[in-house]
């Protein structure tokens, strides 16, 4: 009886399945193999592939977390000394729709954990990926580089496919996780008739006959003669035909409307072999993406380690348990070439709403990004940017970090803020993670604080994992003092000699250090006075010039 895992080497889901549109992909594959336009064969097939059920909406966080840039910059595949770009749209799609079921997350974590702890398996997976990438390149033939000899290209595709199957069948024998599916799949295909026919055809192509040559060398060292001492045909090969029958077969093909050539003869055999293995190729398109998913995560960890940072598979806990993110850092900084400063983040429970206060440029927004990306990665079953951590799966992720004014917006800044709040509550589900930057910063503090408190009060009923930054320091201090809401916790940016350390400690900050920021950016009284004087002097000069 055939196991489902041997039919499709699905590495992302405990219940293996081909998630592509089989019929459409098969037609596209046949077209690509025949040499038609197929530069986006894999992308198009995967863009319509189904994913594990997810409750997350990428629109609620992808833009604020710079998901595309994160995937492109951090999830690069590092194989040996090479650094390969993954398929960004596909990985964004995967990360943006993390599985709702914990079993799927656990399945992926097991695979990734095994790869991280067993170098041999990782190496085998990398080699498998490289051969798959070669197969993809040959099929998509992006720049038409092999158009001059389409048949050679087709044979190369078949040879690459054979290599992939061999690698899958032999490289993952000791695996105790989903990787074992590769072995099952490889072995099943290897024992099938289409694969044997493929092997026979490649052998026929490479070694239809063997000539033994005798080379005569003259006294001056030059070749003086060549003679054939023996000719041996591979008669055992299923494709082997006597010369007279090959000739008659060519005549037959001509009569049937084909070209009369050895090439056409081979083309028919290639076509017959490919039609036998085409359905196996469909599964490999899906596998290509799955491998990028894991190898991207491993490559990310390699890059972090190279920068002296750690990554881990966090412990998955219930929402009632304490949150611990030890050595948490922002991968977007790492990607930009800035050495991030890790910090530790602890809360009493996961459902605590954390108000973060502190000076401008103190790392509050970066902290929110780090928490959001860590949640996203953990939820996808990948390493998080922290040395250790405990994470509870969230039902959704809502991030609002960037407030960009646009020409089309109908409301002023307060109006937009209120719309943001309304939108948040419309999308919010119990147990979701909420990351809000500078809530209610667009109106006067007294009225803003009222709305702020209203949001905090209503949020507590949905028990979200919420992180909110604010510059309403007095208001935050009053909430801390009153202890009116049990679910509220307070973090402040640590300062050392008046400068932020990018660490966070319990409590509410006493200053936003706006003066320092103003001085740093040239907005002190003296600097502004100097600018005014210069403007007036310029104006006086222009007036006298007109009079003269």
């Amino acid at each position, binding site marked *: 009886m055939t196991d489902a895992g041997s039919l499709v080497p699905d590495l992302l889901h405990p219940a293996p399945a081909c998630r592509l549109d089989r019929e459409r992909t098969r037609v596209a594959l046949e077209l690509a193999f025949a040499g038609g336009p197929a530069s986006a064969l894999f992308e198009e097939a995967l863009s319509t592939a189904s994913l594990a059920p997810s409750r997350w909406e990428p629109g609620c966080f992808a833009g604020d977390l710079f998901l595309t840039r994160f995937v492109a910059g951090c999830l690069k595949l590092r194989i040996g000394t090479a650094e390969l770009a993954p398929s960004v749209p596909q990985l964004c799609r995967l990360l943006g729709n993390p599985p709702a079921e914990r079993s799927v997350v656990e399945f992926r974590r097991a695979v990734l954990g095994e790869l991280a702890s067993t170098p041999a398996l990782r190496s085998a997976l990398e080699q498998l990926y490289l051969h798959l990438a070669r197969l993809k390149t040959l099929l998509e033939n992006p720049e038409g580089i092999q158009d001059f000899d389409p048949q050679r290209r087709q044979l190369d595709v078949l040879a690459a496919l054979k290599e992939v199957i061999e690698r899958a069948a032999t490289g993952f024998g000791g695996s105790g996780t989903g990787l074992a599916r590769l072995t099952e799949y490889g072995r099943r295909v290897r024992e099938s008739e289409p694969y044997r026919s493929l092997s026979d055809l490649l052998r026929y192509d490479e070694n239809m006959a063997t000539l033994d040559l005798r080379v005569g060398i003259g006294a001056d060292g030059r070749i003086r003669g060549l003679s054939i001492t023996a000719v041996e045909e591979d008669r055992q090969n299923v494709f082997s*035909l006597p010369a007279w029958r090959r000739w008659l077969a060519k005549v037959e093909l001509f009569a049937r409307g084909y070209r009369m050539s050895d090439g056409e003869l081979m083309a028919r055999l290639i076509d017959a072999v490919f039609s036998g293995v085409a359905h196996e190729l469909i599964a490999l398109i899906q596998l290509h993406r799955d491998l990028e998913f894991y190898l991207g995560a491993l490559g990310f960890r390699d890059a972090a380690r190279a920068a002296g940072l750690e990554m881990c598979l966090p412990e998955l806990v219930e929402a009632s348990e304490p949150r611990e993110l030890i050595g948490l850092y922002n991968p977007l900084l790492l990607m930009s070439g800035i050495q991030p400063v890790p910090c530790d983040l602890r809360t009493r429970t996961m459902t605590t709403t954390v108000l973060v206060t502190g000076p401008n440029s103190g790392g509050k927004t970066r902290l929110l990004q780090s928490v959001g990306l860590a949640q996203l990665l953990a939820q996808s079953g990948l390493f998080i940017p922290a040395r250790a951590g405990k994470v509870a799966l969230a039902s959704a992720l809502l991030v609002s970090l960037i407030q960009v004014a646009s020409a089309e917006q109908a409301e002023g800044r307060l109006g937009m803020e209120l719309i943001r709040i309304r939108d948040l509550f419309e999308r919010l589900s119990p147990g979701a993670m909420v990351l809000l930057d500078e809530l209610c910063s667009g109106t006067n503090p007294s009225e803003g604080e009222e709305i702020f408190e209203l949001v905090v009060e209503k949020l507590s009923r949905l028990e979200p994992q919420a992180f909110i930054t604010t510059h309403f320091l007095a208001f935050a201090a009053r909430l801390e003092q009153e202890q009116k809401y049990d679910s509220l916790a307070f973090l402040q940016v640590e300062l050392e000699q008046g400068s932020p350390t990018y660490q966070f400690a319990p409590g509410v900050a006493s200053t936003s250090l706006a003066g320092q920021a103003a001085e740093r950016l040239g907005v002190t009284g003296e600097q502004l006075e100097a600018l005014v004087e210069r403007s007036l002097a310029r104006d006086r000069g222009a007036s006298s010039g007109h009079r003269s």
Partner: protein
Amino acid sequence: MPTLLVTRKMPRELAERVRASVGGQGDRRARRRSRLTALVRFALVVLLVAAVTQIVLVTRRARLELERVRATLLERVRSEAATLEPEVRRVRARVEPWLMRFEGAYEGDRISPELAHEGALDRALGRPSLYVRGALSRLSADAPESYPDAFVLCLVKPPGDRTEKSLRAMARAAATSRGLEPARGFARYGDALVVLPLLEPGFRARVSATGDLAALELLGQAFDHAPLASARRAARAEQLLIVVDEPGAGSAPSELDGERPHPVRVGLVDLTKNEVLLRLRRSVDPSWASPAARAQHARGMDGCMLALDVRAAVRDAR
């Protein structure tokens, strides 16, 4: 649909796929187009094979016909050449020296005693003979062109008298083949020589080398029209009758047919014994005849008169 690409060693599934690949898998329209192309190509192949076969058959048939015609012709040529060629060569070898001898200085009149007997001349003239006549200076050249004439006719069947009327009748009779019937025992030397090239190995080599049936048929026609019977008669001649016209007097008038007064040598040679039976030298002069007769038959009447002179000389020699 079976195909030659499928081998017995192929698994059944692969064989099916090869058949499907060869049979075409496109949509109905593409399949129909493919079938149409296949049909056209098949028809072309059949036509080509038929044309090639036809060409091969026709060529083979033509070659066989050529060989048959060639073999037949060669067989005929060989058969004729086997007997006739040696005979012709033999008679030429016998005749040529006598022609040269009669071209030389006249050796004097001679009548063999064999002819002196009553009726000996007529018996001698009844044997198979060759007749040649020519000018003294070009006897060898004129000899092959010689035909029996009034001299031969009158020698074999002399007229009763020497009147103009009788001689004129003989001359007129000698102008027709029926009239020459009494002289049929005299063959043409030219008939023997004209067939010689057809009997030599060169002709057979041409027949063997010719690859064109039309050319071969032309050669066959040439052989068919050759006077082989006459040549055989000439080759088997036992006697040679020679008439040599010496140049006449330059001042004498010439008749319309070129005849004029001139000496004539007559010889009868026994080719089997290689000896002269008769050698005479007489003069002819057409002036004795009426102008009307001379205008038409001067040469014939002179020839006939000469024949009567020869017979008279033989009679006188008894």
